[in-house]
């Protein structure tokens, strides 16, 4: 019949369906692995190491303090 789609057209459309689906799936999986670091497709484990930068303090090995000593001696009769 003239209004029927030909078997050839059906085959082309089927092939196109398979190719588009395969490419879409591959691109999506590749993208997920590359950028997301995990998804419901493939969970990965990311490790994050946080370093604390502490300023170096030179050791102090000596110290010195001073106190006062006072008295007042009055003159005597000698």
């Amino acid at each position: 019949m003239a209004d029927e789609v030909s078997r050839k057209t059906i085959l082309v459309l089927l092939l196109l369906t398979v190719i588009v689906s395969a490419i879409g799936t591959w691109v999506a999986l590749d993208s997920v692995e590359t950028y997301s670091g995990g998804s419901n497709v493939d969970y990965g484990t990311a490790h994050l190491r946080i370093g604390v930068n502490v300023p170096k303090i030179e050791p102090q090995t000596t110290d010195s303090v001073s106190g006062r000593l006072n008295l007042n001696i009055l003159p005597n009769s000698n």
Partner: protein
Amino acid sequence: MKKDISNKALAGLLIAAIVISLSGTMMVFDKQGGITGFATEQNGTAAINISGVVSIALPSNSIDFGTSSVVPPNAYCNVSYDGSSTTHEPAACGGWSGSGDIIVENDGNQAANVTIKARDDVATFIGGQSPGMFYKSADNESGSCSGNVVSSYTELTTSATNFCDVLDTGADDGFDTVKLHLKLKIPSDAVGYKSNTLTFEAS
């Protein structure tokens, strides 16, 4: 008779399948539009290096023997002060009375070897004939000096001598203080206001 699906209907289904597949792909891209940084575990490491610090302080830093004189016919007065009480010899020297305190505290994080010295020697400080300046040290808090204190009166000079060779850091500011005891020999021919500086050095 069972009717087969037409080629036209089949083509329509295929086109629908293509559209759905394309839409799914676009939705995946759209959903993960940003970088998620999705991590299931995070480890942090903090490192700290505490340097040793030798540090001492004087919570009490002054002793005053007050004002008096050597009463004739005495040739001198020996006055001793331990930070709380004054003793005299001979008895006629009772006019001298000490006040104040000199206490050395280890406020660092390492045990310290502490020495003492005077700015002025005894002749400059007190003057007169045969003056004397002596010191000894004792725990202000029990066990503060785990090394050697100076337990008997020793001449105090301008050269550094032992005060406590292992002054501990203590815990929570406890058991880390040593007190100075002083003894002066004041001759009858010395007169005037006298002042001296005592320096404690820790290493």
